[in-house]
C-alpha cells in the first residue's frame, strides 16, 4: 500500500461521485435528513430528561393523610412507604409542622394565619423523595392504595407530561429514523451499483491485469464512505449551529430553564452522528459490492 495506490482510490471514488452526481446528491440528502431527525430527537430526549431531573419538585411526592390515622398506623405507613419501589427517603410532616412551614413562607404577613392553631385545617403528610423522575408516577399510584391516604400529589402532572412527550418522540423518532436509515443505505447501495455498472468493463480489465479484490473494491467502498461522511458532516454542522442559537435564545428568554449545554456531551452527540453517516455509507457500499461485484 503506497501513496500512489491511495491516490488512485481517492481519484476513482471522486470520479464516480461526479459521474453519478444526481444519485450521489440524493443519497447525501437522505443521510442528512435522517441524521437531522436523529440528532434532534436525541437532543430533545436528553434535554427533557435533564430538565425533569433538575426540577427538584418533580422528584418529590407529597402524601396527605386523613385526620383519623393514629400514631401506630403512622409508624406502620412510614415503613410501608419505604418499601415502595423508587422511594429514597420519607419524612413525616405533622399538621403543626405544616402550619409552621406555611407561616414561615408568609414571613411578616404570618398574622393572617393566627388563630388557626386551635383548629388546624392542614393535614398530616409524608414528604417522599424518589430516586428518579421516571419512577414517580408509578410510586404515586402505589402510595394512593395505602390505608389512611387522603391524596397524593406530585409535580402537578409536569413529570408525566414531559415523560409521555419523550416517550412519543422516542417512538416516532425511532420509527422515522429506521425508515430513513434503510432508505439511505438503499440509496447508497444503488449509487454504488450504478458506479460498478458504469465501470464494469474497466473492472474486467483490472481483474485480467491481476488486480486484487481489495484494489477493485476499495474505490467503491471509499465512494460510499465519502458520501456518508459528507451527509454526516452537513447534518452535524446544521445541528451544531441551530442548537447553539437555540441555547442562546433560551438563556435570554427563559433563564430559569437549563438545557444541556455541556460541550463534551454535545460533541459526543455530533461525533456519533458523523460516525453514523460514515457507517451508513460503508454499509451501503458493502451491501452493493457483495451483490454486484463478485470477484
Amino acid at each position, binding site marked *: *500500500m*503506497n501513496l*500512489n*495506490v491511495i491516490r*488512485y482510490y481517492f481519484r476513482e471514488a471522486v470520479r464516480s461521485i461526479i459521474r453519478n452526481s444526481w444519485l450521489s446528491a440524493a443519497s447525501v440528502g437522505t443521510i442528512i435528513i435522517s441524521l437531522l431527525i436523529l440528532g434532534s430527537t436525541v437532543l430533545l430526549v436528553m434535554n427533557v430528561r435533564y430538565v425533569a431531573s433538575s426540577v427538584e419538585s418533580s422528584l418529590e411526592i407529597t402524601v396527605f393523610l386523613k385526620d383519623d390515622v393514629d400514631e401506630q398506623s403512622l409508624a406502620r405507613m412510614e415503613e410501608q412507604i419505604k418499601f415502595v419501589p423508587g422511594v429514597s427517603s420519607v419524612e413525616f410532616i405533622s399538621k403543626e409542622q405544616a402550619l409552621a412551614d406555611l407561616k414561615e413562607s408568609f414571613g411578616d404577613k404570618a398574622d393572617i394565619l393566627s388563630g388557626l392553631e386551635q383548629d388546624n385545617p392542614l393535614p398530616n403528610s409524608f414528604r417522599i423523595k424518589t430516586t428518579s423522575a421516571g419512577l414517580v408516577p408509578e410510586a404515586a399510584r402505589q402510595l394512593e392504595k395505602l390505608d389512611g391516604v387522603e391524596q397524593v400529589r406530585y409535580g402537578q402532572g409536569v413529570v408525566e407530561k414531559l415523560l409521555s412527550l419523550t416517550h412519543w418522540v422516542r417512538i416516532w423518532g425511532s420509527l422515522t429514523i429506521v425508515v430513513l436509515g434503510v432508505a439511505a443505505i438503499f440509496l447508497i447501495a444503488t449509487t454504488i451499483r450504478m458506479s460498478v455498472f458504469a465501470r464494469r*468493463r*474497466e473492472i*474486467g*480489465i*483490472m*481483474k*485480467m*491485469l*491481476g*488486480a*486484487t*479484490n481489495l*484494489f477493485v473494491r476499495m474505490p467503491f467502498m471509499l465512494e460510499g464512505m465519502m458520501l456518508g461522511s459528507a451527509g454526516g458532516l452537513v447534518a452535524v454542522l446544521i445541528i451544531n449551529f441551530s442548537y447553539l442559537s437555540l441555547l442562546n435564545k433560551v438563556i435570554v428568554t427563559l433563564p430559569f430553564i437549563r438545557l444541556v449545554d455541556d460541550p463534551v456531551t454535545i460533541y459526543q452527540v455530533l461525533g456519533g452522528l458523523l460516525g453514523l453517516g460514515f457507517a451508513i455509507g460503508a454499509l451501503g457500499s458493502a451491501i452493493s459490492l457483495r451483490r454486484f461485484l463478485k470477484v
Partner: protein
Amino acid sequence: MIQMFNVSKIYNNGVKALNDVTLHIKKGEFVFLVGPSGAGKSTLTKLICREEMPSRGQVVINGRSLARMKSREVPFLRRKIGMVFQDFRLIPTKTVFENVAFALEITGASNKEIKKVVPMVLRMVGLEKKANMLPAHLSGGEQQRTSVARAIVNNPILLLADEPTGNLDPDNSWELMKLFLDINRRGTTIVMATHAWDIVDEMKRRVIALSNGTVIRDEEGGVYGYES
C-alpha cells in the same frame, strides 16, 4: 510451464467445450492454437489464466496446480501472464501511457518505477510518440500494440493472445507478429489462439489444432491445415 492433464470443460449450460485435453508447453515456446470457431480455443486460454476452472482434469502452471490455488492467489498468477485480445480491451478514458501504467499501478508500483518502465516498453512496441494519445485516436494496429505493451510491462513469463489479429489488416497483423517474435526471443512463452491460417503457415511454429474440444493435431513447425 503449462501442463494440462485430461482436461475437460463442460459449461453450466451443458456445452462441452473441451474434451480430455492433455498437453505440455515448455518455457520459451511459441504455440499457435488453431481450429474453427467454437472449437474451444478461448476456453483453453481461459483455463490457463483461471478465468474458468476445468470440469475434469488438472491445469498446472509453473508447477502450481490451479485447482489448489486459493482465489486470493489468482491475481498474482495473472500478473505473470500477459493477455492480449481481439478487441484490445483498453480503457478509453486513459491515454496510451496511462493504459500501460495501469498494469503497474494495480501491482502497487511506485511512480518512479512507472516513469522508468513504461517509456521503455512503449519504445519497444514503437509507440513512444503516441504516449499521450487516447485509444480512440489510434489506428487498430496501434491500439493492439498498446495492449501488448500493457501485457508485457509486468515482465510476464507467458503471453496469452486470443485472436489478437482478428481486428487488424494484414500489414498490422504482420507488424504484431514481428513484435511477438521479438518478445518470444526475449524468453517469454507465447500461446496464441488464431484463425489466421496465413500467419500460422508462414511462421512455422508449433501448432495445436482443436476440433470440437479435442486436440486433433499437435506438431512442431506445423501449418494451419485445410481440413476445417
